């Protein structure tokens, strides 16, 4: 593709003697997973459009250590954390935005004690603040009147009590926000958390993502909105399993906003 994304790195910024407004923590999924890379790019397009001064760590970024910590490997987690904190502190990072609730939770809650103190926001919160400050306008575009249901990521919702930012953004699209029977604090997990993403599930009678996809399908949505690259994968697989991928799309909030404006 010939599109030009403006993605400065912290190293480039520093060389120019500049400090960005916010550091965009891309995360492993956002960097390497084909589906999640689209979310990353959609978010960057919005940042570019809104003239936000941001930078990424690029090749200096490394896994936050979340899956290792949730798998029980505190050593590996703390090694990752301390390496990342060294890099972040060297760049004097103040504010971090990320599109991954797992990175968000770890950076926000688990890094401070290890010496990494930053203001950390999820990309939906960041987009909402851009909107409130008048730096970003959101139009309904192709999503006007569409039925959109939002799947709460555990690490954004229950873990950190962020429920409203993604919903307000959906409503700004002039879409019809429909809630699943289990939502917000009672939202059902997609099945990926706690390092489950990287292993087979234990014997049972159903996969968790299928159970959750059924919740979503009950709302007869046009789109299942997600705010986490792992939830996105799980729900996308669930929709495919239900052979509904023709009618129902699974999209990140950032993609909804970028696509609505043909970014």
């Amino acid at each position, binding site marked *: *593709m010939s599109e030009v994304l403006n*993605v400065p*790195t912290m190293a480039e910024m520093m060389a120019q003697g500049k400090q960005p407004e916010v550091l965009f923590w*891309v995360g*492993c999924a*956002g*960097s*390497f997973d084909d589906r999640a*890379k689209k979310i990353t790019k959609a978010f960057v397009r919005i940042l570019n459009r809104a003239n936000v001064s941001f930078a990424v760590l*690029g*090749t200096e*970024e*490394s*896994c936050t250590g979340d*899956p*290792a*910590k*949730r*798998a*029980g*490997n*505190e*050593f590996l*987690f*703390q*090694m*990752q954390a*301390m390496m990342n904190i060294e890099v972040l502190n060297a760049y004097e990072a103040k504010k971090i935005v990320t599109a991954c609730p797992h990175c968000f*939770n770890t950076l926000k*809650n*688990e890094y401070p004690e*290890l010496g990494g103190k930053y203001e950390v926001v999820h990309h939906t919160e960041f987009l909402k603040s851009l909107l409130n400050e008048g730096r970003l306008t959101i139009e309904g575009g192709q999503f006007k009147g569409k039925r959109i249901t939002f799947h709460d990521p*555990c*690490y954004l919702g*229950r*873990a*950190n*009590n962020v429920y409203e930012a993604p919903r307000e953004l959906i409503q700004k699209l002039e879409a019809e926000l429909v809630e699943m029977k289990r939502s917000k*604090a*009672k939202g*059902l*997990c997609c*099945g990926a*958390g*706690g*390092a*489950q993403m*990287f*292993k087979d*599930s*234990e*014997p*049972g*009678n*159903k*996969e*968790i993502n*299928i*159970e*959750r996809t059924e919740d979503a399908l009950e709302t007869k949505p046009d789109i299942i909105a997600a705010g986490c690259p792992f939830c996105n994968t799980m729900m996308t697989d669930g929709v495919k399993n239900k052979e509904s991928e023709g009618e129902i799309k699974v999209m990140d909030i950032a993609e909804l906003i970028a696509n609505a404006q043909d970014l």
Partner: protein
Amino acid sequence: MSYLDNILFAIILGLGISFFTINIKKIIRNIKLGQDVNRSNNSSQRWANMAMIALGQSKMVKRPIAGILHIFVYVGFVIINIEVLEIIIDGLFGTHRAFSFLGVFYTILIGSFEILAFLVLMAVVIFLIRRNIIKLNRFISSDLKGWPKSDANYILYFEIILMSLFLLMNAADYHLQLLDFGHYERVGAFPISQFIEPLFNGISEATVMVIERAVWWLHIIGILIFLNYLYFSKHLHILLAFPNTYFADLNPKGQLDNLESVTKEVKLMMDPNADPFAAAPVDATTVSGKFGASDVQDLNWVQLLNAYTCTECGRCTSSCPANLTGKKLSPRKIMMDTRDRLEEVGRNIDNNNGIFVPDNKSLLNDYITTEELWACTSCNACVEECPVNISPLSIIMDMRRYLVMEQSAAPLPLNAMMANIENNGAPWQYNQQDRLNWKNE
């Protein structure tokens, strides 16, 4: 002669309270077997949580039917205990309805006790129906096979008996009051037991008085038995819900503690000036030489308090994604297993003059299997659901830590994931140098 009653009463009361105190001391000793964790910060927030969640039942009513019925039983229990105070005074000093000097207030008091007792009876009957006739999923799951199921029913039967005795006692009293018999002065109001009172018509006054006394004694003895039953039962929550909500973790639910012992080692590892050949520093603050938990003594005392507080309602399990999809994991069972093992360790200490003698058993494997531990998605649904802020998740995580850091016993795909993070900074096998490639794709 008449002092005999009072002495007998004092003896029974003393026995009841001392047995209870002995057992509570055992519970405290067992909880203290846990590792230290500091939960003394932010006491205003802690008091507020206790007031809202334990006293105010704010999380109970998230499931309205059970929540409201539970409030009847809870308020009934708390308020009717004022009556127990009167019974104790009457019993010790040979008075009859010692608080009746309160006049109109006493009338209102007794009247409201009666209505509450009736509401408690109603709620308890509905609870029995929910458990034994409707058979709600969370009450018939395999977690509750055997003793836990009986325990739940015994508690409900107990409450029926106590409330019935209370109303019967009042009915007999009221009957005698109407007849202006003996010292039965016309005090109190009996909105419920007035309907039981006609049962005594045609029975001699002396017999009714014997019934009144007998029921009075049975009621207070019943209460003392119930008090002592708590130790053996999940019903301990009526006391422990308060400290449990006070000491619960105040951090965001997503925040998992960072192991300090690991921080020390990692810092040493990353310190270019560290002497690799130096002997390991002797550190008096290292309480346990073990990473993670394989037995109850490795857990912290709040987790052990959690285990004693759990009343096995099963809201956690009924919202657990792993359990909902047929996996073995049940957060309720995690808590029940922790308590069962802790009590086993406690008995071991009792039988060995205060010292724990290794019994070749542990919480891990003998109670909680690795299959259960690895099924958790760490989604916090169980923590969110718990009406008294118990965290089954924290126990699961500590046990995973033991499996991975002490036993290298992670499932193979997780070992691969961790090796990737270690080698190339991502859970998948991609080169860290390719991290920004998406920009140009």
